[in-house]
């Protein structure tokens, strides 16, 4: 456990959420670490879903579900980690609107992440596999006994559950496993906006996974559901087979793979094996796919670990565009109808519901390529200049973020930097450049100074390297 202070609360709320609102910080400090982490991690699955319409492949349809979801993230409170995990799963189990062409299916997939994203990983994998958007995106719906299609089976191993190689660089599976997995996944179709299993399309022959390994499964009729639609019991069950895979250290592959990805998402890259093996313990439990492998347990282990609060984990990771935009709006108490959001997210490189490929988005410094960095500047400028809310726009009230009875630009700059949680990180020369920007102004009750210089300084601060990081 660490000292539970403002710095650590701000860090937790930035990573496990979308940034701390100024007025909520003291409440979370009072709550203490254990209770705060528990409250964030253990939320019941929510059934809310974006308002996507059936067969809607229009830009307007995409934008409506995007604004719904962004608003939910930007205003989230006790369910903020649940929403953050929706975003994580959306990147992990990627499907794109441009290929799926159906706003309802993208909404249903989003609901899967909200309903199952903190619970049993086996349930989540099953629901994603039969999800219409995924069946469409990775050709699951055309994968049949007579004409198998390897697309989903490959990504299930490569991207979703095992990874190409284990922590030692040893390959986890062979092309033959891809072929066998495709056979296990045959038989699914989309009927009335649902993933439906049709036994006649299913390859009911014997398959062998991980042939020759100690954790080989089969030859057996491996699949997901029986002809009545009930989950097949393991070891016949495909997901149980994947969860039983062992790496070149003899450890369970899936927990290490998932733990690494989550640690890198929430803390920093390249965690040690020792750390990963620590945090997976409550996740693995007794190793029963039907009762263990609960995602909340892994998340709690991460947020209770001292290493999560290390210097390395703080101000080291580039915020993704959603985090950048939402944290700026939360810190500065910006209100909006969220209509401008889709255009900004697209320009910043994170059009929700449209990851660039099944590999999700490229994270980290890749977010800050020249054009995308400038797009962040444009967003920062848009909210800093936000003076309306009823029409398409943002509203920022500068007085809510600084004390207008201040008599020096130094004081105002320091207050604003503190609101944005970057005061300690910005180098002195940069801070001085911000002060010099005020060109000697001292009357902060003068609306002209506020509208021009204070708003201008806010825009500048949102452009600094420090605010791109958390």
């Amino acid at each position: 456990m660490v000292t539970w202070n403002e710095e650590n609360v701000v860090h937790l709320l930035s990573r496990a959420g979308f940034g701390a609102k100024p007025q909520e910080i003291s409440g979370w400090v009072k709550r203490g670490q254990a209770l705060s982490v528990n409250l964030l991690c253990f939320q019941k699955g929510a059934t809310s879903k974006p308002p996507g319409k059936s067969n809607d492949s229009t830009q307007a349809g995409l934008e409506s579900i995007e604004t719904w979801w962004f608003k939910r993230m930007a205003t989230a409170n006790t369910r903020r980690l649940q929403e953050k995990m929706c975003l994580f799963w959306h990147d992990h189990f990627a499907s794109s609107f441009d290929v799926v062409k159906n706003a309802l299916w993208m909404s249903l997939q989003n609901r899967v992440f909200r309903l199952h994203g903190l619970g049993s990983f086996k349930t989540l994998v099953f629901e994603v596999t039969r999800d219409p958007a995924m069946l469409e995106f990775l050709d699951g719906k055309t994968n049949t006994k007579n004409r198998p299609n390897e697309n989903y089976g490959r990504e299930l191993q490569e991207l979703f559950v095992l990874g190409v190689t284990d922590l030692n660089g040893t390959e986890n599976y062979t092309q033959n496993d891809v072929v066998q997995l495709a056979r296990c996944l045959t038989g699914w179709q989309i009927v009335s906006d649902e993933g439906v299993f049709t036994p006649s399309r299913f390859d009911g022959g014997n398959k062998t996974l991980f042939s020759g390994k100690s954790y080989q499964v089969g030859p057996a009729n491996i699949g997901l559901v029986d002809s009545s639609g009930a989950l097949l019991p393991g070891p016949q069950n495909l997901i149980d087979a994947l969860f039983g895979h062992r790496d070149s250290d003899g450890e369970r592959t899936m927990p290490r793979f998932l733990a690494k990805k989550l640690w890198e998402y929430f803390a920093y890259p390249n965690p040690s094996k020792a750390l990963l093996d620590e945090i997976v313990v409550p996740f693995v439990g007794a190793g029963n796919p039907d009762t263990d492998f609960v995602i909340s347990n892994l998340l709690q282990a991460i947020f209770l670990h001292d290493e999560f609060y290390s210097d390395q984990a703080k101000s080291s990771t580039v915020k993704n565009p959603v985090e950048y935009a939402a944290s700026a709006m939360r810190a500065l108490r910006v209100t909006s109808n969220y209509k401008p959001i889709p255009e900004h997210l697209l320009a910043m490189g994170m059009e929700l519901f449209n990851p660039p490929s099944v590999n999700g988005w490229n994270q980290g410094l890749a977010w800050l390529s020249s054009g995308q960095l400038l797009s962040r500047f444009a967003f920062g400028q848009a909210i800093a200049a936000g003076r309306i809310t009823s029409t398409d726009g943002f509203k920022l009230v500068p007085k809510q973020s600084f004390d207008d009875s201040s008599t020096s630009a130094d004081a105002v700059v320091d207050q604003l930097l503190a609101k944005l949680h970057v005061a300690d990180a910005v180098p002195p020369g940069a801070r001085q450049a911000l002060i010099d920007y005020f060109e000697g102004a001292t009357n902060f009750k003068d609306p002209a100074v506020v509208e021009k210089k204070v708003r201008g300084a806010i825009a500048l601060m949102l452009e600094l390297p420090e605010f791109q990081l958390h």
Partner: protein
Amino acid sequence: MSIDRRSFLKRSAATAAAFATPHPLLRAVLGSSLAHASPPGAILVLVQLEGGNDGLNTIIPVDDVAGFPQRSTYETKRPNLQVALTSGGPTSLGADPAKGNELALHPQLVEVKSRFDEGKLAVVNGVGYSNQSLSHFRSEDIWFGGLSSSQPFSTGWFGRWLDSEYTSTDLVAVDVNETLNPLFTCTDCNVLAVTDLDEFALPDDPNPLYQDPVAKKLALQTAYGYEADPLETSGVQLTIGTSGSVLLDKMDVYEAVNLGPSNLQGLTYSLAKRLRQVSSILRYDTLNPGSATGARFFHVRIGGFDTHSNQGTRHPDLMDKLSRALDAFYQDTVDLGISSQVLTLTFSEFGRRVAENGGPSNAGTDHGAASVLFALGGGVQGGIYGTLPDLTDLDDKGNLKFHTDFRQVYATVIDKWLGSPGDHVPILGGSFSTLGFLT
């Protein structure tokens, strides 16, 4: 001697004859300035076909010859996806250099076929690498990284070239892309990544009463100056500070570049628009040598090649788009009088499996191995390079066997286009024999 002068001198004798007559549309605009235009040295444009281009439906066997039943095998394996071709047809390339079968380009590649006939297009068969990865991401890492398939990705092959030839204050590469392609990943280089130069500018307050552009720009540049100082910041902050600082400096130079007339003008799809950005920069630099951006290396990409299903409709459309855009861009370079200075190279992370999947209504192909690529430009030695791999002698996954390592292509570009013989060795971590499509 700087790289510009070295490569320019090497080619100046050969290129005098390669100058073509400017397109009438541009002649009036260029007028006498063309006589004084100084082409900016060896220029490279990398065109990425994202998803795995089906090489077998790009350069296609037309017939069987004794010992090599390429066409009949092709038809058996691809009952639905086979492309109908007649001997000596409009896109016929001539005989396979080793096996002798007639080869043809996909029927939609009409424009690049004309360039082939002029000797400006080289088609390279059988390109790949050993221990083929069938994962998009791993195979892309291999192509971007320019190392062997057993080595993890760390820097991009072109990033290493930039590191070896340029400093941390140079900006000579432009990725017309939302996010910087890993082939540019480097230690100390700068690459501009924008999809549209019009958007390469600082935003300002929309309310004219409160616009403060001069003071804001000064504050931002000053602040980033400190953020880029290793005495002031470190780690990721320093990295962002440094690249942001270079960006702010170069912004003024690029502000002067605008779209201008182009043969790409009528084409509205992404590849064409992105090549037009490249063309605009080249045009600006050619006409304004005194204030040029100095950009010489470019990357663009076209997606959609991962044709697991419905390849019959999707692939021909991609071939058409590729052909029109590549050729219109080439025409722009001809009109500017710099066609012999510009090399355009296509590449893709892998080809596709010989046997199709699916049925008549949705046939497609899964990930494959060896594929093809094009080299287009006034300085190219056109022709067919490398044999079409034997369709009856596939690898254990049913894929075409490669015979030309992709690093041979990179070595050819590095040694013969960008630098001198042997330059490729430290960049690619090994010695590779070069191909003849450049001299």
